[in-house]
Every structure is written in structure tokens, then in C-alpha cells.
């Protein structure tokens, strides 16, 4: 215990003396939480629309008005030839082209049906997909609107009409920030856990102090605990900053209890610290440790369910996410913050995280050697 105390004192002294680490620990969460949730949003807005109106009728005007007033589209071009609009797409001035054929109004009124044409710039897959979908919905809406307009008197079986109303459970306003902020917080915690720990230990290797430590009677677990405890505390500190920002800036008050979040975070940090330790035992210098943890972070983030839903991933990718500690924490955070889950609701995740902690730390301790 005495040795551990001295190791911890040394460790804290070094960390507090390194202004770049302190800055990273304090400023990184603040900046990331203040900027990312505003920018990283699933909603597609500002879709640039080019309209080719060959009809110039009352109805075509109504349609265009309806589309532009939806708020999702910006009318960037209004022309009378398809070629011209396609040129706009080529110059990246338009994402979608909606062509309204001549006699649109006439056919709609006379034949009771009319055709429209949508061309999509599919370079940005998400934008193209969602943009076209929004447009289709608006056109459908428009369609039913004019039909109700024609039917002067409500009568039976004139028009099959199914209206879908929905309500967003747990996030009634579908506020994406409620969704993103807890997720970003998880990424931050993971970075503090893996990156900083790995780099800290590898630094001792690089400057050779580890040799000096290894010829002393310091026990393996003393040294490792001396490294893990400070970053475990820093992780919980970052979490506290993050939750405060979530509350003060975004007004996110977890429906569940803070204790649940902290209990899981404490266990989660143990797992990612073990991972950081593992990275450090396999890296000889700080670059290697950086690259390795960067590589893992990329996979963790992209396959963690923060930006893309895990449920829509292919089966093999779903399997990978099962080995991704980040995905569990993001899930738990959302469960607790939005749904108010309790410790007993997340016992499966707690169990898995405990497994991760034992696995990573066990592996790291076995592979950390005091001699070559």
C-alpha cells in the first residue's frame, strides 16, 4: 500500500505538471460537447432542389410552393429544360431535380393521374436517399390534399384514406441532441481511458524509466494500479463535466438515476483502461500506441451505434459490435438518460462490461513483463 501511495503521488505530480494533458482533459470534453451535437445531426436539411417546370400551371406552382415551404429544400434553380438542371447537378449546385411535365395540370384533372420525374444526385448516399424520400412524402401529401379538395362532400368509399399518426416515445420531440450528447460523452470517456493510459505507460518505456522501475522491488500490480487509478478518476471527472454540460447547455436531465450512470461508467472505465494498458504492452513508442488506439477508436466509433444504428447493420457487423465496449455504453447511456432504466435493467450490459474488464486487464497483466 505504501508503495502504491508513492507511485500515485508521483503519477499525479507528473500529470498535473503536464499542461497539455490537463488541457486535453478539461477542454476536450467541453469543446466536443459544445460543437458536435449541433453539427452531427441525422436530419437532412438544406437539400438543393432544381425544378424543371414545363407546365407553368396553377397546380405546378402549388406543388413547388408546398415543397419549398417544408423547410427541407432550397430551390436553387428553376428552369425550363432538363439538360440545364442536370448541369446544375454536375456543378454540385443541385441535389435533386424535379421535373414537372407539360400538361401536368391538364392530365391531373382530366385523366385523374399525372407523372412526375425525380433525378437524384447519389454522390452523397444519405442525402440522396432521404432527400428523395422527403420529396416523395411531400408529393403524396399534395396528392391527397388536392383529392380531398375535389371531393366536396364527404361520402363513403370515395377515397381510401389511411392517416398515420405517431408519437416518439422517450424522446417526444425527437430532439437529436438527447440522442447525440450521451453518445459523444461515451466516446470522450473512451478516449481518456485508452489513449491517455496507453501513451502514459509507453512514455515510461520511451524515456527508459521503466527499466529503472523494473530493477526495483515494485510489484507488477503496484505499477499497473499506479497507472490505472489516476486515469480512472480522470475518466469519472470528464463524465461529470460532460453531464454538467448536457444539463446546462442542452437541458438534458437523465430520466434515470446518476448513480446508475456512474456505476456503469466506473466499470466501463476499468475495461477501457485495461485496453489502454494492453495497447501499451504491445507498443514500443508513443507513435505506435497512438496509431493503434486511433485504429481501434475508429472501429469503436463507427461500429458503436453512435452515428449509424446497429440494428441496420449487416449480421457480421452486428457480431463485431458485440465485442465493442463502446456500443454497450452508448446503449446504456441512452437507456438511462432517455428511458430512465435502472441498474437491474442494465444488468446484462454490466455483466458484459465486467467480462471486458477482466479480459483486457488480465491479458495486459500477463503480457506486461518486468524482464525480456
Amino acid at each position, binding site marked *: 500500500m*505504501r*508503495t502504491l501511495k*508513492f*507511485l500515485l503521488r*508521483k503519477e499525479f*505530480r*507528473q500529470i498535473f*505538471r*503536464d499542461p497539455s494533458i490537463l488541457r486535453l482533459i478539461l477542454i476536450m470534453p467541453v469543446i466536443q460537447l459544445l460543437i458536435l451535437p449541433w453539427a452531427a445531426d441525422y436530419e437532412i436539411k438544406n437539400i438543393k432542389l432544381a425544378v424543371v417546370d414545363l407546365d407553368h400551371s396553377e397546380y405546378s406552382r402549388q406543388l413547388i410552393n408546398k415543397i419549398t415551404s417544408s423547410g427541407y429544400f432550397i430551390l436553387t434553380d428553376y428552369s425550363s429544360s432538363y439538360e440545364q438542371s442536370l448541369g446544375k447537378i454536375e456543378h454540385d449546385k443541385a441535389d435533386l431535380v424535379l421535373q414537372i411535365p407539360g400538361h401536368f395540370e391538364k392530365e391531373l384533372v382530366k385523366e385523374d393521374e399525372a407523372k412526375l420525374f425525380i433525378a437524384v444526385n447519389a454522390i452523397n448516399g444519405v442525402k440522396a436517399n432521404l432527400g428523395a424520400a422527403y420529396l416523395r412524402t411531400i408529393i403524396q401529401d399534395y396528392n391527397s390534399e388536392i383529392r380531398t379538395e375535389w371531393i366536396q362532400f364527404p361520402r363513403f368509399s370515395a377515397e381510401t384514406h389511411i392517416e398515420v399518426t405517431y408519437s416518439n416515445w422517450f424522446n417526444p420531440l425527437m430532439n437529436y441532441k438527447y440522442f447525440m450528447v450521451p453518445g459523444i460523452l461515451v466516446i470522450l470517456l473512451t478516449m481518456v481511458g485508452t489513449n491517455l493510459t496507453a501513451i502514459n505507460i509507453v512514455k515510461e518505456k520511451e*524515456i*527508459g*524509466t521503466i*527499466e*529503472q*522501475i*523494473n*530493477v*526495483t*522491488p*515494485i510489484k507488477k500490480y503496484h505499477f499497473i494500479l499506479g497507472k490505472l487509478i489516476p486515469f480512472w478518476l480522470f475518466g469519472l471527472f470528464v463524465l461529470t463535466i460532460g453531464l454538467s454540460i448536457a444539463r446546462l447547455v442542452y437541458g438534458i436531465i437523465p430520466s434515470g438515476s446518476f448513480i446508475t450512470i456512474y456505476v456503469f461508467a466506473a466499470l466501463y472505465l476499468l475495461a477501457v483502461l485495461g485496453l489502454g494498458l494492453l495497447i501499451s504492452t504491445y507498443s514500443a513508442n508513443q507513435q505506435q500506441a497512438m496509431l493503434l488506439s486511433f485504429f481501434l477508436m475508429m472501429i469503436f466509433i463507427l461500429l458503436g451505434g453512435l452515428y449509424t444504428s446497429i440494428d441496420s447493420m449487416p449480421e457480421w457487423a452486428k457480431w463485431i459490435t458485440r465485442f465493442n465496449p463502446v456500443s454497450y455504453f452508448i446503449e446504456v447511456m441512452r437507456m438511462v438518460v432517455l428511458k430512465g432504466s435502472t441498474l437491474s435493467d442494465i444488468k446484462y450490459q454490466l455483466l458484459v462490461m465486467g467480462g471486458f474488464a477482466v479480459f483486457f486487464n488480465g491479458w495486459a497483466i500477463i503480457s506486461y513483463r*518486468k*524482464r*525480456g
Partner: protein
Amino acid sequence: MDKTKEKVVAGVVVENIIKTYGKKKDMTALNDISFDVQKGELFGLIGPDGAGKTSLFRILTTLLLADSGKATVDGFDVVKDYKAIRKRVGYMPGRFSLYPDLSVEENLNFFATIFNTSIEENYDLVKDIYVQIEPFKKRKAGKLSGGMKQKLALSCALIHRPSVLFLDEPTTGVDAVSRKEFWEMLKGLKQQGITILVSTPYMDEARLCDRIALIQNGKILSINSPQGIVNDFSKPLWAVKSDRMLHLQNELQEKDFVENVYPFGEFHHVVMKNESGSEQLRNFITAHSSENAVLQQVKPDIEDCFIDLMKN
């Protein structure tokens, strides 16, 4: 644990240590090395870079496992009793490896506390060295000059009063004055009964050891006292000088009575194959008197012995 009391054990015993590196074990760092160091002896390992000195030190300080062979430090086996060894040895690696972001005092304090002791307890041992850096005790270790870093490293290696001290090239990259001071300190430590193993690539430092082992390519060429090594040198040795030094060396190289010629300060040292060669050399120099050729007999130095041993 009573091993030390049963018999008078040597400070360090090395028996047939072999260490190879590489996947195919094809790079031999230490090739069947054996020697022993008496308690309280100042023992020097002299050899060029890459001779295997650091590997040997790392094996003896329990940082590296040998492929085969046995070694004991202060009576403890380096493999079985590594825990006991780590309590009683001081190791100063060739590269400065203390915490650069901790101050001089904090570094020393840290190493004292992890050995369960304090600066005050062993102050007498490090006093002579530490007083020299004490004025800078609040300075970060990384901001010290080369010589001061060495002194701090030595203090840290000594603060737990080790019985055996391993110094891996302690004076490499240190100025001449600091080097001299450093060796003075080692002599003082020897008086305290500490066994010291020191490695160095400098031949002039070899003379300051009680005994030295000349080591090259993982093999020990000779172990003796510095005087003993010099005494073993039996071939006639001459120093020559002329206006055309390079030419002189090339010409002498060709002569069959000459075993070896190499630059040595402002002279070339010439080693004869036998006594009769001296006469032929004298004739050769007389023939070159127009180039101000000078000849004088010299006593061999450790360096001459080392060059000779390396060649054979």
C-alpha cells in the same frame, strides 16, 4: 536466505552465459561468458560498442533472461532469486532514465521511497555526490546538464544502499572533468564496501579499475588487473613519427617484420613480430631520416593490449 553466511560468496559470478537475439537466434550477443567479481571490487568491462556489455548488465540486473548459463549476484541466482536481487542492486543504465518532469529532489525521493527508505537514512552514502547537485534540487531532472544528470542517476542508484552497483557506460557523453570526478566518486564508494561493475568504451578509465575484462563480440578476451594485462604484452612496441604519417603507416604495413601499425596520438604504434624486428625497424627509420622520421620505444598501454587481443 542464509546462503550469504554459509561461505564467503563472490559479489558477482557469471558462468557460461549465452544470449542470442533474433527469431532464429542467429545474433549472438554473449557467447559463453564466465567471470567472477569479488566483493568490494571495482570491476571494469571494457569493450567497443556492441560488444555485449549492456546485455550482460541487463541479465545481471534481472531485466533479461539468458539463453543458457548461470549467474549469481551477491549470492542470489538471477533467475530464481530475482526478487532478492532487485532489493540489493543499484543499476544505472547507459541512457539517462529518470523522470525528466520531476525535480532532482523528487526523483531521489521517489527512488528512496520505493525501496522503503528515505534520503535522510542513507544521506551519508550519497552525500559526496549529492551535495554537488543539491543547489539545483528544485530543478527538473530533464533540464540538468549531462554531468549533473549522471550524478543524479548515480545518487538514485545508490539511495537504497545497494550491495552491488551496475554502471552501464556511466561516463559516455560526459566532459573530461566530470568523468574524472565520477571515477573519484566510484573509488569512494568502493571504500564503503560496495561491489561495482562498470562498463566503458574508454581505455583510459580501465586503468582505474581493480580488474578489467576486455570484451568483444560477446567474448571475453582477457581478464586481469590493468597492470597484469599490460605485463602480458610481450612483443616489442615502438612509436614512430615522420612528416608523412599516412605514407609511413602504409609502408610499414607491408613489412614482414611488422605485426601491426596503428595511429596512436601523434605517433604510430608499431608492434613487432619478434625481437629481431626491432633492428629492422631501426634500419627502416634511418633510411627515412630525410622525412624527419623519429623512433622511440614505448611501454604498452591498455589500448595497445586491447588492439593486440582484438587482432588475434
